């Protein structure tokens, strides 16, 4: 993920509005995937933390935390070694609140009996109200706010920081726990959101395919200018070997970061060996939530990252290969459509949809796909 040029930014007024927001004021930003929220959140955090080093940035999951850290390391300020990569601190909400609550109350946060990760916010807020507790950070920056509980925002505005910058999406939530913009605004005491409507990530060619799967609010036409905007391509059938060979060719020619999305982790594991063999010079890695290996994976470094549908959320790659299309299609529910939309919109420049290995598209699934101007069929 490279820094934008001024021209890239200038073409998207709403992004500028966010970037230009005074550093000492609360900010609320909402937008669909691809509108550039995550990058804006990191930039915001960097700029705020440069003037207020006790600022803290909290994120929803661990892979994201890694992404944020990497992004912040790219900043020019961190070029000279021995200066902090990010002057504030970055943590997941889960771990930050755990420590904060423990420090304040000398006891662990209460969790739901069914889910040890689900804090019981009402109880925590009630207990903290009893003592003398006050916010202790000058600024809190939160990304993926829609995935966080309403109770967290109350906790944050009362006990973390009175000044918050929250970036949220109300369209992409994969988790059941889903908080609306109105709830966030009220709980965190924020101004009206700046609503991002433009697609900043994908080329127009990729955006039009993603829109095909969309069920809900849409970002407007893509605004990204790129010399690499190709029409996404559809491969109706391919073997594992062919897929490995083509992915490796793509790595060797276009280079950049490549995401290979699988439905079955088993398929990902099978791909890993031939890919590593064919790309001895490049980074080839497999990420799953259960491996918990995100700290070892540098998704921004050029190379191939194999991951599943759940892990790809919030990521961005120059080129994306979505494998096992036959398992994702046809989409029968809105949630399945959202999933396809989310996966397609991970790609910046190049997108390949591939049925296989070990499967073909059904006639119904094939018929429901858009025509060759939007999705160009090719044979491998």
């Amino acid at each position, binding site marked *: 993920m*490279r*820094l*934008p*040029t*001024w*021209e890239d*930014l*200038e073409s998207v007024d709403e992004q*500028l*509005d966010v*970037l*230009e*927001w*005074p*550093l*000492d004021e609360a900010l609320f930003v909402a937008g669909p995937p691809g509108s550039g929220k995550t990058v804006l959140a990191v*930039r915001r955090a*960097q*700029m705020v933390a*440069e*003037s207020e080093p006790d600022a803290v940035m909290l994120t929803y999951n661990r892979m994201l935390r890694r992404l944020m*850290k990497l992004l912040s*390391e790219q*900043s*020019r*300020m*961190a070029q*000279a*070694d*021995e*200066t*902090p*990569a*990010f*002057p504030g*601190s*970055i943590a997941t909400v889960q771990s930050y609140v755990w420590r904060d609550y423990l420090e304040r109350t000398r006891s662990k946060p209460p969790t739901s009996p069914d889910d040890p990760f689900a804090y019981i916010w009402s109880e925590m807020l009630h207990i903290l109200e009893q003592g003398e507790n006050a916010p202790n950070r000058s600024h809190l920056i939160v990304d993926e706010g829609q995935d966080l509980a309403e109770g967290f925002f109350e906790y944050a505005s009362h006990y973390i920081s009175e000044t918050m910058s929250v970036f949220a999406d109300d369209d992409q939530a994969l988790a059941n726990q889903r908080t609306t913009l109105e709830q966030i605004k009220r709980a965190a005491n924020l101004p009206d959101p700046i609503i991002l409507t433009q697609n900043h990530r994908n080329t127009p*060619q990729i955006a039009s395919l993603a829109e095909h799967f969309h069920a809900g609010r849409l970002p407007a036409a893509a605004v990204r*200018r*790129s*010399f*690499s*905007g*190709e*029409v996404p391509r559809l491969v109706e059938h391919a073997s594992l070997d062919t897929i490995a060979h*083509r*992915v490796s*060719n*793509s790595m*060797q*020619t*276009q*280079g*950049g970061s490549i995401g290979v999305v699988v439905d079955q982790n088993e398929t990902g594991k099978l791909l890993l060996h031939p890919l590593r063999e064919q790309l001895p*010079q490049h980074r080839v890695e497999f990420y799953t939530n259960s491996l918990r290996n995100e700290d*070892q994976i540098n998704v921004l470094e*050029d190379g191939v990252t194999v991951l599943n549908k759940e892990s790809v959320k919030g990521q961005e790659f*120059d080129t994306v290969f979505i494998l096992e299309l036959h398992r994702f299609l046809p989409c029968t529910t809105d949630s399945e459509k959202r999933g396809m939309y989310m996966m397609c919109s991970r790609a910046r420049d190049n997108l*390949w949809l591939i049925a296989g290995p070990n499967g073909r598209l059904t006639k119904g699934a094939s018929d429901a796909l858009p025509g060759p101007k939007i999705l160009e069929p*090719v044979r491998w």
Partner: protein
Amino acid sequence: MVEQTELSYDEGGFQQPRPMEAAFPQLNLTVDHRRLFRALGDGWLRPLEVGAGQVVGVRRLVRESKHPTSGHRIAVRLFLDASKLPDLDTLVSRNGQWKPVRLRDVCSEDDAIHWSSAIPTFAICAVAVPSIEERDRLIGMSNALSNVDLSDIQVTVADTVNEYESTIPLCEAKGQLMIPVRQDSIYGALTMALWAVPRIDPWMDVLQASMAAEPSRLAEATDAVDAPWWRVPPWRPQADRQDTLADSLWLAAMDTFQGNCDEEPSPPRGMLVRIADRALQNGGAEFKDAIADWRDATARIFATEATVKLQDWWKNPVGVAIQLVLTRPEPGRFKTWFKDMPSLPPGIAWSAATLCGLLNGYRRLSTDFRGGALQRELLSIEALSVCSPQAAKMHWPKGRLNLRWRREAAVFVLSHGAQDLARKTRQARGKWYGADFGKAEVCRAARGVAEKLNWSCVKVSIEDRKIPVSGTGKLEMRSGGLEVLGKVDIFVPERGTFDVETFRRLIALERANVPAPPEAKALAELPNDVIPGLTYEPDFLDEEDEQRLVEWIDKQAWSSALRRRVQHYGWRYDYKARGVDSSMRLGELPAPLAELAQRLYDRGLVPQVPDQAIVNEYEANQGITPHADAPSFADGIATISLLESWEMNFHPPSKGGGGRMGNKVPRLLERRSVAVLQGEARWKWKHEIVKRKSDPYVDRGKRRRRDRNRRISLTFRKVRPPAGQASR
């Protein structure tokens, strides 16, 4: 400074030369930050209206006429150095009236001037904003942009920035000089050409000749490197020469890429079709098939059916260069070719980089590519002059670019008159040109390289004589050489001689990973392996110690404030301020570390018991740049290495006290060892761990490399009581 006595130009023709004033009044103009960023991105602050000029303050404070006051715009006052501008006709506001004068005749008593053109950003010498928050925000925003760098412009805070003079009369004058659209493309090509020029003597000649308008010297230089297409550099377009496949593709790519940066970008497959069509239209019938083949092969690359092939690169070097650009068109990505294909023939790499600059234009190049201030200034004027005959006649204070190259100890220096504009480290290939082939070891190494790469560098001179040949193959004379088909044995009478010129030529041209020549021996004769003040003890810990320590460390919380993970004990260390103060005391060292600190002291390795410890975790490809530890720590710094053996380089203090470092001395810090720095090694020497993926080691007399994984280092130091606080 260059003498300013040449003829200068104005609308009416040439005037008599006259000396420039010694000092110029400073000019000011307040714009909003968006205008500043746009200008820094492209090199020019363009007038708000096409064809207009702009009013700039001299004695009075002037704000741009359409200055927005709403939203969160930041008012930025630019201070301009008029001595960097050409001496154009301007209008000056004197006593409430506009009068025509030359820029050099403007005096500090004047209110304002009307500058009839865009303002080059190299004239901006400082900026001011109204508040600290706005300064932080301005710098923060610039850090988020790839093509804007504020680091060499001073940003100050002044609450007068929002003031401006409203009594300056309107000026309706037209602009004199427009910046042509093509300028950005050409500026981009020039910038990338300088960035990527192969650091090898004959290519430096091509660069130098391509910048000067001397066709015969350029032809000579390009012939020397077999790159005839460079006779038409992108910034010196000429009547079409389409004698060869290379020429027709080169010109077609230039036509297609130039000015593209202002249009809606077209996808690579679209550009491919346009280049091939243009080349087919222009090119001679004899290479129509070759162009079509190239087009189809490139299309297969886009379909991921094939990759860029270098095997037969010499058949179509320009075609390969275009493939490199089309597959990675964005400059940041393009750059990765150099890492992915270190064996790229220099001519292809350079041609492709230059085309990449032409395609993207200067505006889309990140600041990494742009070079220093002088280079930016001269190339910007050069690009403008190439595109605009009017600008070409203008008198710029530094003159037009007059590029020369020279060799210094380890670098190539590019200069303009007496000023250096870029320094480029010589790499392996370039070092062969300075190497002394009179030395046996250099010749031996060269022969070794030639043999390994299968280069024909041995010359056998034969006169008037029949040469016996046997075998089943055939010999054919082709242009430039004898072609052997199949297997043939040739019996020559004399021993051949190693032809250095041929070897050097191949060094400059061929596709290969070329190793550097052996360095002069003189250095090795110095006793350079002594690091005064370094004590080293292998196996300071035993395996059980190590395992227990690592387990303990992994249970503690890591700080991710740096690129690598760290833990601080005893005292927190502020990396930014490079020090500690009394507020940073964290408490006693935890037991496992306190025990080690005591052991270091007991064994006489350190003069005092350390009270601060930092745990550093290095993952493969992480390192630490050369540094000496901060003075807030006392003498005697101990580093214990865990899990892996990595190499640390020690840099001796420079002789003249300048910034350059002397010859480094590498030392392997073995797993479980301790290294202690005292005296000179602690205060005067610098140490570093190079960021790389593997480290050398010796196994049964053989040099090998071992991949890095994870190393943990424990650094023990004693904090010196901060001055003035000890007495409190």
